[in-house]
């Protein structure tokens, strides 16, 4: 039976503890959540992402006050009202646009850190899967947000992406028209993507962030050597005052203080972009209002979708869609396609080392090729890079199956 101390002053520590168990919460969620010592700055990317999401949320709230989700007024509400009239409206917009772009850079770093150190195996499969769900949700959030200024690129990207749902030769025009609520993107389309962007997707993302943190709690984060740490035993050492001997530190305040330092550096970079180089996140084509009767000369997505777009592009319609679908889901399967029990950095894992670097370089090549016009040598390079991507993933189970146990690991 719960005990409520009648003498505790309202909102005092004791009073709150009786009602909310704040000491237990704090212990479980922060002061006795253990992080290995053997990590580097790449382990701070999670908090960098959380902070960037916070920036997106706050800047988004301010933009929401003046944005009008109407095909006739949306463009001006962004480019005239918010950019020209609202005090510091330009700041919120540039912060929102730059953060939306930078968040994908950090997501990719976060993902490739996980791939490099094998942080998706041995109890960490759900961390990877929930992270991939977050990636997909962030993609949907970015795409729906990109529709809102209702410029030329918004409109035509909306046209191209919704057309994908006709699923090639299945020709499901009815499904495409249902998604748009019209024959072409129009008011119904803008209204529903506005809803998705400001309500449904943020709710889903927040729920997934909680799940992602939850999946970390039992397996704990990986470390630079993939060492299997007995977190209970190491935590006892720390609590007994043997802080030098212990292989772990508490999340709060020790790990967080270093995290905060990385955040400080990151925000210098971020605000440098916001104030001096925001234009990279502001496509000039989107400063023309949407025109259903004029396709821009060259339609391309934002940089973070270019690699998967380039996998779609070199193939004929149906195989292209299959390749695109493959690229969208294949990362989910990583924990199951990697057949090696080794949890170790890629550079100690034989052939996997080459697989990792080939994949990274190939995705950069795909990104660059997605940006240039589809002609001549670019088409050839793009086709080769798209095939390389597919072949790398097909090879992965075989490479990892043949992998020798890394020394010092069971």
């Amino acid at each position: 039976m719960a005990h409520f101390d009648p003498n505790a002053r309202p909102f005092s520590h004791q009073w709150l503890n009786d009602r909310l168990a704040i000491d237990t919460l704090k212990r479980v969620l922060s002061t006795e959540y253990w992080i290995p010592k053997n990590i580097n700055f790449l382990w701070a990317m999670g908090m960098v992402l959380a902070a960037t999401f916070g920036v997106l949320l706050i800047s988004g709230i301010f933009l929401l006050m003046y944005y009008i989700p109407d095909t006739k007024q949306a463009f001006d509400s962004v480019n005239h009202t918010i950019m020209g009239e609202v005090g510091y409206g330009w700041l919120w917009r540039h912060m929102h646009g730059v953060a939306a772009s930078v968040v994908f850079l950090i997501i990719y770093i976060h993902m490739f850190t996980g791939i490099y150190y094998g942080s998706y195996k041995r109890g960490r499969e759900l961390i990877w899967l929930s992270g991939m769900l977050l990636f997909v949700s962030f993609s949907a959030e970015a795409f729906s947000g990109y529709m809102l200024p209702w410029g030329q690129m918004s409109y035509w990207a909306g046209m191209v992406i919704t057309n994908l749902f006709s699923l090639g030769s299945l020709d499901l025009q009815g499904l495409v028209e249902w998604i748009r609520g019209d024959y072409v993107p129009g008011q119904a389309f803008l209204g529903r993507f506005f809803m998705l962007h400001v309500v449904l997707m943020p709710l889903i993302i927040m729920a997934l962030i909680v799940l992602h943190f939850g999946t970390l709690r039992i397996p704990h984060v990986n470390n630079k050597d993939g060492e299997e740490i007995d977190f209970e035993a190491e935590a006892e050492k720390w609590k007994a005052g043997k802080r030098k001997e212990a292989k772990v530190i508490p999340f709060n305040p020790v790990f967080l203080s270093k995290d905060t330092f990385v955040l400080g550096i990151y925000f210098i970079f971020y605000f440098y972009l916001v104030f001096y180089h925001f234009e990279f996140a502001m496509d000039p084509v989107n400063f023309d209002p949407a025109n259903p009767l004029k396709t821009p000369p060259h339609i391309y997505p934002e940089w973070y979708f270019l690699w998967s777009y380039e996998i779609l592009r070199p193939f004929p319609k149906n195989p292209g869609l299959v390749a695109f679908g493959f690229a969208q889901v294949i990362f989910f399967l990583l924990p199951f396609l990697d057949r090696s029990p080794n949890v170790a950095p890629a550079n100690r894992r034989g052939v996997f080392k080459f697989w990792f670097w080939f994949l990274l370089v190939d995705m950069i090549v795909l990104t660059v090729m997605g940006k240039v016009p589809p002609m001549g040598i670019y088409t050839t390079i793009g086709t080769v890079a798209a095939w390389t991507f597919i072949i790398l993933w097909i090879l992965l189970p075989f490479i990892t199956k043949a992998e020798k146990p890394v020394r010092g690991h069971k």
Partner: protein
Amino acid sequence: MSDRRDFFGKVLGAYAGLGALGALYAAKRTWDPLPSVKAAGFTTLDLSNLEENKLYVEKWRGKPILIIKVPKDAKPDGAPNGNNENAYDDKRLITVGGHKFMIVVGLCTHLGCIPDYFPEKKKFICPCHGGQFNAAGEVLKAPPPSPLVIPPFKIDGTKVVLGEAGPEYKKLKEAGLVA
């Protein structure tokens, strides 16, 4: 006791499931195109004063409609897929007032971009992924998998009503030539 609880569990499940189905159907219907959107679906084109080999763009159901009065010599300047026949002889052209016209929905059948017409080359090139079509909307170069789509039309003198399927459209459709 446990049987009773199981039974009520199933009843509750069925009851909630029914509600969920109803809500899903309502949600699906909410996203359907509105009746007003569907009703505003007819466009009349007057084809009496068009110049040959020049692209005209009209709008039908929010989509661009491309119209060319096809000249007698409409052989495309190069066809990467080998289909370099004279577009004037194409069965997909629509004869109105003694002249042959290409009337198609101007959205590339690959991913819906609007192809640009190059009159001197007598062909369309899509700016998005490099697809090409001749002056009758037939594919000259992938990725578009099929010709540009012919919208439902009805010929009325020198005018054409889009959105209504006339006998000429039905004939084309039966021959499998509209898309």
